[in-house]
Structures are given as structure tokens and as C-alpha cells.
């Protein structure tokens, strides 16, 4: 096959993508399939702990993929204990332990295989891959500093910013020297032991969740809100569930300093945000999960005039187009958009279609389903109850809810106390659904299909008219009938009636 020539605009490339993560790779592959000449620049700065990784971005290397596998390891541990109740001869609970180095190796091997497959895909699709740190010189010139020190300038018609983000280290004495982040946790050579997780967003909760299931002492430090941005009733239930499993929570507290002890432990001092009183404890590992920042300044986006949000430094974008007509952006660097891999992929593909194939479809950032992979999962799609009320007014909203008992919980006598779901809809018939929320086993699997239904305009009438699959957890959505407004007790009275 003859090498692809760039279009007649006079630049060497049609598109240069900075960032080889989900969004950047999706856009690059789509553009190449439409006959464009594309280069992808990818570079990973080592974390403060020295962790580095290969092609594919956060999701593949230090995000969704290792997280889901560690979560799976946690679920398997739980299933082993259940299994005894179902007749399997299982050794004493105490003798079942997790081999952390083995888990780490298996997960890292999987990641390496994905890195390789992605690399081969780029070759096969004829995307030029450059393992280099990219930065903008001007709107049409990307500077590439290769790993071996050589430098290149790439002249391009379009630029796609897709650098993603990295965890933040707050300016606290000892934090940078002593803390790890989600960049490091999945490749730690040894088990983290007694761990303090600072931050109660989904990353913090998921990490604390699997560590606790692995039998480690896990504490979550919460400044103000657990799972900010999510439905707060559901966030409260997730917190209760994690507490019941043994995770400790330090509410309304912030870290003050961290000091390494002679024995290698880290002394963390924190204070109450309510009365400033200080406390401290020793931990083997401190995991910082207080947020992520976009890598926009690293590529000098501000210096070529790309409009960034003054606080978050994220790109202010409309339909993935920045304020500069040939510079585009997708993924976690977008201001006010969900930081989710499938969102970045979809936005990247659609953008390439619009740029190079007269595509007309725009990315729909609403009603994107997501799941928090805590041991008991929380899947949701659409608006939280608070947000629905804020937009439509309490009088115009109906909330159907229920606690339910998964069939598989009875035999091992697992507590269904936090197995709960609710549907937030408009009050007027046919009660268009605005949001669905589910806590229970397989949250991601349960909510995905409903997301498609919501996209098609699902109503409560249609949902009630749907016949469930028995016995599943997802069918509970079709059995909802109690509204919050009615005041009827939403806890289940019997099993199958």
C-alpha cells in the first residue's frame, strides 16, 4: 500500500493527536480509516513514586482495567466464603489469603498484552505512533521530544488534544514524598497493608473497597462529601455498606502533614474541619485520591491561546472544538464533561467523522451510564434525585424506590440491607424517566441496558409494563411501584410474590 499523503492544505499531517489514550487513539484510528494522514504522540511522565507505563492511557494502564480486575479479585474472595454455604469444601476463612504479588503480576501481564495489541493495531491501521512528549508551538505546529532526546516538529492541519489527566498531590508537608496514588497502587510490589485513602470520590472508595476485601485495614478520609456529583442518598448507602464491611471513615477531616517513621510507616496527622482538633495515626500506605488535573499546561495549550477554565485548567470546548478553529479536544481534559473512557472514545470517533466524512452526529454527553465498582456496586444513569428536583421542582418529580433481596444472598445470609434502587421520573404521565440508580451486585451489567432505554425515552409506564427475568436483580426495576411521596415502606416483605 502506498503511503498515505496528507491533504492539499500544505501541512505534513492532516491530524496530529497529543495523547495515546482512549479518546486520542479512537479519533486517530477513525481519521486514518477515512484516508487521513495521522500521527499520535504518547508519553508518560513517571509518577512521583516512579511508576510508568505503556500505550493506551489511564484506562488501560492505571484506571478502569486494573481497577476492574482488582475488584474482581475482591468479589472472588467474597464468593469463596459464600461457596462454603453452597456446599463447597472451603478451608477456614482465616487460611484464605490474597497473594498480592501474584495478583499484581497477572494484572500487569494483562495490561502489557493490551499495550502490545494497541501498538500492533496502530501499525496495521497505519497510524504513525511517536513515543514522544508533544507540545504546541503554534496552532499548526506540534513539537515532539522523543524518548531518546531527539526533537521533531510536526506541521499539521488539525490538532487533537487528548492528554487526559493525572492525580493531584495537594500541597501538604510530606505528601509528595510519602503518598502513592492510583498511578501506583496496581503495580505495588508488595501488599499496601494498613492504608489511608485520602479522598472519597469514586477512585478512593473503589481502592478502599478492594483493599478491605483483601483483608487489609482501610480508612477513607472525607473532607466534605462522599461521591460528590452522584446522588447523595445512594452515596450514603454506599458509605454505610462499606462501613459494615469494615472500612473506616474519617468524616470532615483534612490531612495536615505526613512523616516517615524509622520503621517505614507513615505518621499522618489530620484535623477536623469543624473544630480544628488534630489527630494522628500510623499507616503502611497513604493513597492520595483527592482529584485529577488535566495535562493542558504541559502541552502549552495556554500559550497558543487555547481557552482554559481559570480554576480547573480544563479546555473550554463546544462540540470538541476549542476557541482555536483547528484545535480540538476530547476526553478527561474537557471542562464540565464526564471523565469516562467510553465518552472519550465516542467523542473522538464522532469528531473524526464530522471532520473528515461530513458526519453530522454530535456527542451526547447526557444520560451516560456509569458504575462505581465498590464491593457492592453502584450503577446509575441520568440525573440524581437532587438534580432532577433542581431542574424540574419537587412537585413535578416522582421517585419510585425499593429495597430488594437478591436470591443469591439468602443461602450465605449476606446482608441485603443496602440493596436498593430508585427511578427518578417526571410526575406527569407517562412519567418520562430522568434517572435510574441501582446498588447491588453487577451494577454495571444491570444499568447498561437501561441506559439505551433511557436514550430512547423510557417512561415509568413502559418500565412497569416490562416483564422481568426471574430470578435476577435487574428485574427489580420492573417491579417498582412504591413512590417516595406515598410514604409506604420500601423494604421487601416477602421473597417472590
Amino acid at each position: 500500500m502506498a503511503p498515505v499523503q496528507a491533504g492539499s492544505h500544505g501541512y505534513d499531517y492532516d491530524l496530529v493527536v497529543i495523547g495515546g489514550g482512549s479518546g486520542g487513539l479512537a479519533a486517530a484510528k477513525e481519521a486514518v480509516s477515512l484516508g487521513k494522514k495521522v500521527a499520535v504522540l504518547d508519553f508518560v511522565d513517571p509518577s512521583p513514586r516512579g511508576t510508568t507505563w505503556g500505550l493506551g492511557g489511564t484506562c488501560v494502564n492505571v484506571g478502569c482495567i486494573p481497577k476492574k480486575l482488582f475488584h474482581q479479585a475482591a468479589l472472588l474472595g467474597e464468593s469463596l466464603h459464600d461457596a462454603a454455604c453452597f456446599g463447597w469444601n472451603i478451608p477456614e476463612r482465616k487460611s484464605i489469603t490474597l497473594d498480592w504479588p501474584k495478583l499484581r503480576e497477572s494484572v500487569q501481564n494483562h495490561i502489557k498484552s493490551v499495550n502490545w495489541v494497541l501498538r500492533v493495531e496502530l501499525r496495521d491501521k497505519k497510524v504513525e505512533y511517536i513515543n514522544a512528549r508533544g507540545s504546541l508551538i503554534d496552532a499548526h505546529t506540534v513539537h515532539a521530544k522523543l524518548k531518546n532526546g531527539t526533537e521533531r516538529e510536526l506541521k499539521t492541519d488539525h490538532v487533537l488534544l487528548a492528554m487526559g489527566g493525572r492525580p493531584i498531590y495537594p500541597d501538604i508537608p510530606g505528601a509528595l514524598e510519602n503518598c502513592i496514588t492510583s498511578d501506583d497502587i496496581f503495580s505495588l510490589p508488595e501488599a499496601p497493608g494498613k492504608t489511608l485513602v485520602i479522598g472519597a470520590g469514586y477512585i478512593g472508595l473503589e481502592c478502599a473497597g478492594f483493599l478491605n476485601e483483601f483483608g487489609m485495614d482501610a480508612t477513607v478520609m472525607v473532607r466534605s462529601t462522599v461521591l460528590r456529583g452522584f446522588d447523595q442518598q445512594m452515596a450514603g448507602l454506599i458509605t454505610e455498606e462499606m462501613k459494615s464491611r469494615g472500612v473506616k471513615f474519617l468524616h470532615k477531616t483534612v490531612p495536615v502533614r505526613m512523616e516517615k517513621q524509622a520503621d517505614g510507616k507513615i505518621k499522618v496527622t489530620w484535623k477536623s474541619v469543624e473544630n480544628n482538633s488534630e489527630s494522628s495515626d500510623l499507616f503502611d500506605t497513604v493513597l492520595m485520591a483527592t482529584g485529577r488535573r488535566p495535562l493542558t499546561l504541559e502541552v502549552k495549550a495556554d500559550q497558543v491561546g487555547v481557552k482554559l477554565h481559570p480554576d480547573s485548567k480544563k479546555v473550554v470546548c463546544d462540540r470538541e472544538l476549542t476557541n482555536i478553529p483547528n484545535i480540538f479536544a476530547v476526553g478527561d481534559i474537557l471542562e464540565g464533561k464526564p471523565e469516562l473512557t467510553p465518552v472519550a472514545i465516542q467523542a473522538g470517533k464522532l469528531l473524526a467523522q464530522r471532520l473528515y466524512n461530513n458526519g453530522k452526529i454530535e456527542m451526547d454527553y447526557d444520560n451516560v451510564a456509569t458504575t462505581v465498582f465498590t464491593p457492592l456496586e453502584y450503577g446509575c444513569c441520568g440525573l440524581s434525585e437532587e438534580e432532577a428536583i433542581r431542574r424540574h421542582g419537587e412537585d413535578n418529580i416522582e421517585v419510585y424506590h425499593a429495597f430488594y433481596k437478591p436470591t443469591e444472598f439468602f443461602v450465605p445470609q449476606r446482608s441485603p440491607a443496602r440493596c436498593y434502587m430508585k427511578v427518578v421520573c417526571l410526575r406527569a404521565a407517562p412519567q418520562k424517566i430522568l434517572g435510574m440508580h441501582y446498588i447491588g451486585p453487577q451494577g454495571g451489567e444491570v444499568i447498561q441496558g437501561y441506559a439505551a432505554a433511557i436514550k430512547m425515552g423510557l417512561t415509568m409506564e413502559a418500565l412497569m409494563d416490562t416483564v422481568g427475568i426471574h430470578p435476577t436483580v435487574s428485574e427489580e426495576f420492573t417491579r417498582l411501584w412504591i413512590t417516595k411521596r406515598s410514604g409506604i415502606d420500601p423494604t421487601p416483605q416477602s421473597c417472590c410474590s
Partner: protein
Amino acid sequence: MFVTKFVRHGLFANAIRETSDVCKLLPRRLASTAPQVEVFHVQDTKDFDERVKNSKVPVIVDFFATWCNPCRMLTPRIESVIAERKGEVILAKVDIDEHTDLALDYDIGSVPVLIAMKNGKVEDKLIGLQDTDKLRKFVDKVVKSK
């Protein structure tokens, strides 16, 4: 993907256990029967040029990955077949993560891949895990070809 298909299979899990024992024994056996080095790990592109492309005898190049279980299972089989030829053919091992460009140059996708090279030219290629008979035929072919 080829790699994962095999790893998850229960049957192969046993095979891995079996072959890992063979792995441990193999270096000793090789050292005692072979006067010259029959197996080596390629260090870089220059090393590949010198010891593979410019080799006087045919070379089987084994492109492998440390994360690939079928690769691990192939190792003792191909090494024993190479040992049988007593220096008529040598084995060069290329870690695709360490030498990605080299692997991509030779169009490696799924691993393991064996490439038979003679006088710097690719004569044959074998993708995936193979049994010993098939490996023997593959090696014989390149040794006997003119």
C-alpha cells in the same frame, strides 16, 4: 486474540505446570550436549543484524512476550528441537516488549511467532503454539533447504 484463548483453558493450565518443570531442566541439558551456544536472547537491532541476519547457519527467531502463556509453553519444545540439530540451526529469542520496533518490522501481531531465517532472508513463518512434530518439520525444512 490468540493469546488469551489458550490461557483460560483448563487443559492448558495443566500443560503449563508440566512444561515449567521441563524449563528448569533444559539449560543444563543444553550445556552438556552442545559445544556452542544454540539459544540466545537478542539484545538490540545491531545484535540482531550480526547474529541473526549474518548468521552462517539458519536461525529460528522466536518472537515472544513475558506475559504470554503459550509462549512459555512453546519455549521448551522449540529448544529441544533445536538441540536435536546439534548446531546446524540456532535459536534467537526476541522479547517483543523490549524490542518492539524489531517485532513490528517483522509484522508480528499475535505471539508466539517463529520465523525461519537463512542468509538474512525470511524463509518461513509459524504463528501460535505448536506441537513438537510440527516444530521438527518446520526446523527440518529450513535446515535442508538450499
